[in-house]
């Protein structure tokens, strides 16, 4: 884009946001309570949250880089950057976040048929349908390709039986994308299909599991004789592993963003700490400085990878690096927030809100979406070429 065009585009975005972003949505909050996840059973936390989602969805701004036909705004990387900068400037909340946006969307855009994209993507963009991820099973965690949930051949459908676990928000989601074994005789990576399943179908049951942070965001999910029509497969039969891996690279990039201090935008950790600690001791200060240095550099790395992707240089396996670095940093940062909070941080919903819950939640960052150890193994085998 030429400089003139970009200046004009920025002005357009600024004016639109100024006019359309409700005041209540300008607090930049990213807490579990403030996020809008969407979906059939979603209750908006305020009229402003609803209005903000509707206005953005009408323009395609919930998924700005998706094609217009699928509910996006068709933005280029440059335009997306400007849009996000202007959002930041206003401290605007993201209108919608969801597994549909982060995970299913990119996978469908890459592997789906035109019909599938038209059917599944616009409801995600508008926040009408909420998706969950049915990957992990009791016997298939890091060894994900070991999934045993079975899809038996049934002519025009698969008959699915089995169990998933750690399924985040399964009890709130409308649909699930699931890894299902459709060929038990093939080698383990070659017998998996990527299926889209309606959670309202008969035979699906979810049981919430309570987490150490006190909430129950994830579930056990059981499938008993669930009929999945054959047109609800993404990619070819038994080629689901490729879709699964592609989706994981997007999931990992998304998770890593939590660890990077948004360059320029987000407040510095040390500044946040200074809110509660009058005299920051030298050790805390030094640790906070290190987190700041590392967070800013990681934020730049995320930007660099996006720029590289826009220039046609794929990141691929490097998402393992982003995920590992981002989540380990986020854990460090929350340890510091706890130590800065002292005894105030030890109360559930005490003077510092949910600081303890947030801290406990970050411990999952280096587990969900592939553990840190698995990320390091991916880097060492696929990027460094070390023998496996």
């Amino acid at each position, binding site marked *: *884009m030429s400089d003139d065009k*970009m200046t004009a585009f920025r002005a357009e975005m600024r004016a639109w946001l100024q006019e359309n972003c409700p005041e209540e949505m300008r607090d930049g909050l990213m807490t579990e309570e403030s996020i809008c996840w969407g979906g059939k059973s979603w209750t908006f936390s305020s009229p402003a949250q609803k209005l903000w989602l509707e206005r953005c969805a009408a323009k395609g701004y919930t998924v700005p880089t998706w094609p217009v036909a699928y509910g996006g705004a068709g933005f280029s990387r*440059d335009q997306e*950057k400007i849009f996000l900068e202007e959002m930041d400037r206003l401290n605007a909340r993201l209108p919608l976040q969801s597994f549909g946006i982060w995970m299913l969307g990119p996978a469908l855009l890459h592997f789906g048929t035109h019909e599938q994209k038209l059917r599944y993507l616009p409801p995600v963009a508008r926040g009408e349908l909420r998706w969950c991820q049915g990957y992990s099973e009791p016997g298939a965690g890091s060894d994900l390709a070991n999934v045993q949930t079975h899809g038996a051949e049934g002519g025009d459908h698969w008959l699915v039986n089995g169990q998933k676990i750690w399924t985040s928000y399964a009890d709130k989601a409308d649909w699930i994308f699931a890894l299902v074994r459709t060929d038990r005789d093939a080698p383990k990576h070659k017998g998996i299909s990527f299926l889209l399943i309606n959670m309202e179908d008969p035979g699906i049951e979810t049981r919430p599991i309570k987490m150490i942070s006190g909430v129950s965001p994830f579930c056990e999910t059981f499938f008993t004789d669930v009929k999945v029509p054959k047109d609800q497969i993404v990619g070819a039969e038994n080629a689901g592993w490729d879709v699964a891996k592609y989706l994981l690279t997007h999931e990992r990039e998304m998770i890593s963003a939590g660890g990077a201090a948004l360059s320029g935008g987000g*407040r*510095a950790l*040390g*500044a946040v*700490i*200074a809110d509660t600690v009058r005299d*920051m001791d030298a050790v805390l*200060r*030094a640790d*906070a*400085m*290190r987190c*700041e*240095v*590392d967070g*800013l*550099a*990681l934020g*730049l*790395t995320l*930007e*660099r990878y996006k*720029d*590289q992707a826009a*220039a046609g*240089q794929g990141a691929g396996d*490097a998402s393992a*690096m982003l995920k*590992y*670095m981002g989540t380990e940093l986020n854990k460090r940062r929350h340890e510091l927030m706890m130590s800065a909070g002292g005894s105030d941080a030890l109360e559930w919903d005490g003077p510092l809100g949910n600081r303890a819950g947030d801290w406990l939640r970050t411990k999952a960052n280096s587990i969900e979406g592939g553990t840190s*150890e698995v*990320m*390091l*193994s991916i*880097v*060492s*085998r696929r*990027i*460094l*070429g*070390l*023998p*496996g």
Partner: protein
Amino acid sequence: MTKLVRTDEETLLADMARSFLEREAPLSKLRQMRDQGRTHDAAAWKAMAELGWAGVLVPESAGGSDMGFAAANVIAEEMGRTLAVAPFLSTAVIAATTLRQVGDARASKALAQIAAGETTYALAIDESVKFAPDSTRLEARAVGNGFCLSGSKQFVVDGGLAERLLVLARTQAGLTLFDIPADRAGVHRDMAHMIDSRDVARIRFEDVEATGADVLGAVDDAMSVLQPALQAGQAALAAEMTGLAAGAFGMTLSYLKERKQFGVEIGRFQALQHRAAHLWCEIEVTSSAILNAGRMLDSDPASAALAVSLAKARATQTATLAVQEGVQLHGGIGMTDAFDMGFFMKRARVGAEWLGDYSYHAEKVAAQRGF
């Protein structure tokens, strides 16, 4: 819009630089120079000048190649990979940027000499064990129409052989930068015997006479001309250290693939795989900070302070980790002088201190970020 991805020209420059350096300034050259007690390779510097490196920041009107700060970083990074010895940072980056700030006819002439590889400079700034320009005490007393400099400097990189010295001195109402020939009466240079085998001097100034014509920029206002040069130097040094980290890592990775113990390549041990992978991740993240510093210096130098300190802080940490892992993962051979890893380790330690250590730059980052 500036992008955090190398341009085609930068990629080409990096490739050319790498093949040139592997041929003309490989690590074996540093070893040879150390064994012979030499700290300057005039022929190599001449060849670098012919490639346009000495004039990388000199305007084309003064015979430079004027490639910009990001390009200077690319060159420095490649030099870091092979530990190439050259007065690149002192002369082509720091002195050239200073003189360019000055911008008068005399400065143009000096810049032309830099670009041609004819004159080398050293920045005499440190007076204690740490980089602290604000605490400069070397005094430039006003005497008649001129000045009289007395005091001492240490850790003057390239200061033993440089033809000219940029000297930061305290004057009546601030700091003033002098540009004097190194052989002026009263300048006493002692070569320091540095662990990285490079040219570093301790310099005493005993009633050294200077005139107004020796002042760069305005009296009592050194930083207007020097600050941009310090930033450029810090960024290029950070780039060099990132290249150094990548060079040390490359050796280590090769060793993991070839050394056998317990009947297998040691790179099969997951404990080592994960250490190597972690180090690679750190280098990758630091590279982003380097690229960003170059982009900021080229596009908005007045706002580049955060980017530069971030780059130097990260590069210092990363290079330190790379050389420590480099020695450890090589086992006993890593400790031998006959093996090259020690050269990386020693240069990394010197780079860590020069132009502000990790703490100095992390403090700058913290200050810029509001705490």
